[in-house]
Each structure stands twice: as structure tokens, then as C-alpha cells.
């Protein structure tokens, strides 16, 4: 089971290391992690994806909540939510592949944000599985569309509707 944990954290030195250390110490895995201050600069918001059965996810949430600097934590996957991840992918784009990559980017509603005579850098925003699908799609285009570099932001998300994570 995949979980997206949204964590409000005191924006203090060392707070992030406690979260990351907890995962290492208790043998939990982190698939993605993204963190930045919120509109209230005393708080950081951290979004973390992990996997495990229901008991494990419950235990991870409790252990996180136990950290003194964690203000609140929820599992976005426990209810309707919006999740987004940003992907930048630099692709070798020459010959026929150049058009094919452009078309794929259009289909996925990506944007080409940097161009050279033999590369494209494509930006794509969406849920993680959409990003995976795009990488697979351009990877299938044959040798000429070699992926040179990939960077993903990790998942960010919020609950739908009135579900709000706040102090």
C-alpha cells in the first residue's frame, strides 16, 4: 500500500534530520520526500511517500507524530486528494525522434522548456504514475530518443474539498 504523508513541521534547524533519521532507524522506506516553508514561515510542510501494509503505515504516522517538532501529520491517501509531481527530463532529440518527442510531450501536456540542436528538456506536472507513463512512452521511441537525465521533485499533495492540514 502506498501512502502520501503530509507533515507540518516546526521550521527549525535539525527538524528534517529527525524525520529522515526516524525512517532509517525504524527501517521504513522513503520513496519521495519534498519539503519547503509554508506561508507561515515558522512551519515547513513536508510530503513524503512510503509503502507498507496498514499496520506499518499506522505505526509510521504514530512515530512521526511522536517527534516533538512534528505539529501534525496525515495520510493523504486515506481520503480524496490531489497529488502532483514535477518532472524535468532531458532527451536526446535528433532525426525523426525530435517530432515524436514533441508529440508525446503534447499528448501528456508537457512543455519543452529548453531546446538545443540535439536535445529537448521536457517539463511535466502530474501524479507520479503519469510521469512514469511519459518516461516509458519516450523510452519506447527507440535508440534515437535516449533519455539523458531525469529529475523529479517528489510528490506534493493536499486533501480535496474542505480537508485542510493546518496547526
Amino acid at each position, binding site marked *: 500500500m502506498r501512502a502520501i504523508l503530509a507533515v507540518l513541521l*516546526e521550521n527549525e534547524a535539525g527538524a528534517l*534530520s529527525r524525520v529522515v533519521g526516524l525512517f532509517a532507524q525504524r527501517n521504513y522506506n522513503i520513496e519521495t520526500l519534498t519539503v519547503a516553508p509554508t506561508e507561515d514561515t515558522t512551519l515547513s510542510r513536508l510530503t513524503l511517500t512510503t509503502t507498507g501494509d496498514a*499496520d506499518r503505515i499506522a505505526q509510521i504516522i504514530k512515530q512521526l*507524530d*511522536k517527534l516533538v*517538532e512534528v505539529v501534525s501529520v496525515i495520510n493523504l491517501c486515506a481520503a480524496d486528494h490531489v497529488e502532483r509531481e514535477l518532472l524535468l527530463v532531458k532527451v536526446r532529440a535528433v532525426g525523426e525522434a525530435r517530432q515524436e518527442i514533441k508529440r508525446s510531450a503534447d499528448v501528456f501536456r508537457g512543455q519543452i522548456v529548453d531546446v538545443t540542436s540535439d536535445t529537448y528538456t521536457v517539463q511535466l506536472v502530474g501524479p507520479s504514475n503519469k510521469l512514469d507513463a511519459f518516461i516509458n512512452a519516450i523510452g519506447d521511441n527507440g535508440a534515437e530518443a535516449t533519455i539523458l537525465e531525469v529529475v523529479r521533485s517528489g510528490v506534493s499533495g493536499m486533501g480535496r474539498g474542505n480537508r485542510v492540514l493546518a496547526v
Partner: protein
Amino acid sequence: MTEMLSGGDMLIRSLQDEGVEYIFGYPGGSALHIYDAIFRQQKIEHILVRHEQAATHMADGYARSTGQPGVVLVTSGPGATNAITGIATAYMDSIPMVVIAGQVPRDLIGTDAFQETDMVGISRPVVKHSFMVRDASEIPGIVKKAFHIATTGRPGPVVIDVPKDTTDPAETFEYDYSKPINLRSYRPAYEGDMGQIKAAVAAILAAKRPVFYVGGGVIQGNAKEPLRALAKAVGAPVTSTLMGLGAFPGTDELSLGMLGMHGTYEANMAMDETDLVIALGARFDDRVTNNPSKFSPKAKIIHMDVDPASIDKIIDSHIALVGDASWVIEAIWAEYQSQVKQRPAAQSDKQSEHLSEWWQQVNGWRKEHGLNHGLKPEAGKAILPQLAVQTLYRVTKGEAFVSSDVGQHQMFAAQYYHFDEPRRWINSGGLGTMGFGLPAAMGVQMGSPEAVVACVTGEGSFMMNMQELSTCLQYGLPIKIINLNNQALGMVKQWQDMQYGGRHSQSTYSDSLPDFKTLVEAFGHVGIKVSDATQLDDAMELAFSEENKNRLVFVDVWVDPHEHVYPMAIKGGAMRDMILSKTQTSGGAS
């Protein structure tokens, strides 16, 4: 008018304002401004140890026995790293402690300066929380937060890392300790959920074979009175974890003694047969449950803990109660009284009938396989370690504070010294730290100067922190050390006997042991050696005699080196699966 104080003075004043009696510590470069601030005051006594690990264990023993947080002061680098074992020990057993560590000046942090170590980083997995002082003005607020966090909710150690320049006597700041602190992210549960409490009481009333399983949380939560009232009212058997001994009187007829790996036969059998486990302030440690999938197979589980993360961590509960032990157990008791009153009289009779059947069963187990309580010294035979603990129990009338180290002697002490009061049994249950016993006993004696304090140890554990004999002389600590000397690392040897074909790999050193009597005499204390069972009584009486009241006495008891601790859980089994002696097993294994 607000007072102007330096960072170092603010630190010590804050400790005074917290009511701190003792600081256990060891000076060094980065802590010298703080030590100078200690020199300028009289209220707090500093206890100079001989190794920082001992400072943390002393603070720990002080905290366990008094319920007050222990305070440690060490310098940066090796001072800080030496404290880690003691911090981890306190963390595993949820002991309130505040550890202040000197740090190199702020502008040197990160430069690999002399005696620099990342104390916040190195201690992170073994603290409840930690702080680094970024600015001297923060010191009073940080100290206040540290004590609040260390002592509330599930207690634990808190580290404060103090860069030397923030304690500089040349700079002063406004000192005001009355300012309230705000910790929006830290609000431990206190009151339990009434719905769950009602459900728990209904389950207790419906149970035919209930058992109380009591842990250290009842002691930490000062819930002795409500527990005793509840257990008496329900009339069910009470078993205790290693950490919970004394929460319920060990000599009470309801008490089954300790459960778990070296628990009593009756306690483990009761846990296996019960239909309702009432777990209070216990965390289903692997040394208790044995194989979790075979744990109490017929039982409903009520689990009360102050830490929500303990609930459903190892064993799923049917009824979960999160809150302060004292509050919750008292609420269960009150609800129990009111539900019992509402029941028709006929039903109450039926209830006690059910429990009487249960007691018949429990008492059968007690009779069948109790511990060896009737041991008598036999001339010409080696002293059994169990007999040594029984003799200690008799001579101290069961009223001593007893600290222990880790190993066979610890289990013998837990099995054979019956604690009737909480905070009397002081041992490292979670981390299992050898070297804990002596310094912990010193902390106990500091906190209770008039009390009789014994340290049951083994020669292996004792040699890990025996330098503290010097500290004992300095502060006149009249501890009685009972050294169950089996000339080997007994528990390791026992496992090697049982699981490794008797190959004693690196567990013996009998040809190189010191003469402990001479050793302790060299430290200025009294040494007694006894190896003849018929002289054990006299040796023990002498140790606790009036003439030695103010002396540290070390009784080197040469015990039977072949003795094993039984019962012992069979690995991977249910709680009923135990080895009862060198020739006897129980449960599925029989």
C-alpha cells in the same frame, strides 16, 4: 528589575529554578564557563564522577528512585560520546533526564575542531528531544522546554548542546524564568477516552480468566494506588514485567511475579490461558511475548499506554486506552465500582465463581513449578546465586533499593527479591546495559541518603564501571555491592551451554580476575569474600550491620558457576513453552 546574567549563569539558575538538587558530571574545555557558574553558587551540588557514562547512570538511578528528572553535565567530544550509552539506557526505559553537553564555540562548529562532535546528531536516535543553543538569550526557555519534555507524557532523556561562547561570562542577558513556554507541537495525552474505559470495564466483568500485565509505565506514571485498588477490586492475578516490579506488591497473594523470558511458570501459563489481558503501561516487548503470533491465543487485549505508538505496535489490542497511567487506571477503577453496583447480586456471585475456577488453575501452576524458594545453605556445596539473593532479601527485610547490572544475577534478583513498592528495583531493562548497577545505585543513594541501597551485580558487569568506587568514597556513599561471582559472563555462558554445544567462546576469564576484596579495600572500602555456603548469612549480616552502616561494603560471593536461570522461554514458542530446569520443559515442547 530584571537580573542580568551570563549564559553560563542563566543555565545554572534555570536548573535551580527547576528545583534541581544534583548535577552528575565531569568537566572539560567546552564546559568550563558552566563549571565556573557552578562554582559561584551553593544551591545545586555537583557530583564529580570518574567517567561520563557513570554520570548518566547516576542521574538515571536518581530519577528512577525519586521520580525527579536526573541532570547530567558533560563536555564536548568524548565527554558527550561517553554519555551516549547512559542516554540510550534512559531512553529505552523512558526515564526523565536532562543532559547538558558543552560544545565548541559556534564559529568552530563544523570545522572538526578539537573535541568537537555532532552531539545532537549522535544522540538523535536515543533522545526524546534535543536542543542546540543558537543564542545565549534562548537558554532559560530551552531549559524549561527540556524539563517539560523530559518529564511529561512518556518520559525520556533530552539533550541540550551548549556552544562554549553562549556561556561566556563577559556577555549578560535579561534572565526571567517565569515566562511561559509554548510547544504547539507537543501535547501528550493525559485523560483517557471514557468510551474505551467503559468498554474495558465491561470486558473485565465479562472475563473468566483475566490477568493484569503491568509494566514500567505504572511506576513512571505514579499509578501505584489506583492499580492496587483496581487489582484488589477485580481480584485477578497480577504479573509484572521486569520494569514493572514493585508497581504491585510482589508478596501480595494476587501477584504471580515476573512474566516473560525468565518469568515464573505461573505467570507465563496464566498469560497463555487467559481470556483477557489487561496490559497497563507495558509495551509487549519481545522479552515478554516470545512469538507474537502465539501470544495469549485465547485472549482479548486491553492495552493502556501513555504513548500511542506503543498501541498495536507488536500485539493488536481490542480496547486501546491512551493517557496518563494514574488518570486512566483510576478512571477504570471508578467505572468498575459503578458497573459492579449496577449488576444484580446474583451476577456478582457468578463473577467471583468464575474467578475462583481461574484461581484454582493458577494456584495449580504455582504449586507445580514455583521458584526454588526453600533453598538452604549446604555445607561443602557451592553457593547458589538464588540463595544469595534470598539471603539479601531476608537480611534487608525486603525493604532495600536494589539496583542490578545485566545478566544472570539480574534475573535472579528480579525473580527472588520481591519488591513491594515501586521505584525500589532499579535496572536497565530495555537496553540491557552492563555497568549500570553501581552508578545507578549511587544515584539512588544520593536521592535517598537514609535508605539501604544494594547493588546486585556480577563480576563482568561490575568491572565495566568499577572506577566509580572512587566517587563513592568522595561522597561517602554506603552502598552494599553483592557481587555474584561466577567467574564468567554467566548469561552468555548459559546461552552457549544451551544453544552452542557448550562452547564457551570468549565468556570466561577465571584465571585473570582481580582479588575483589583487595581491590575495594584499595579504593578505601570494606571487602568481604565468601565462597562457603554456610558463611553466606554471616557475610551478608556483616555487610548490612550497624558497624558498616556508613561504609561501602563489597561482598564477593563466589557462586556455583554452572547454575542457569530458569524458567527460560523456548525461542519462537508461545508463553507456555518454557525450559524449567536442565532436564525439564513445559508446553508444546514437552
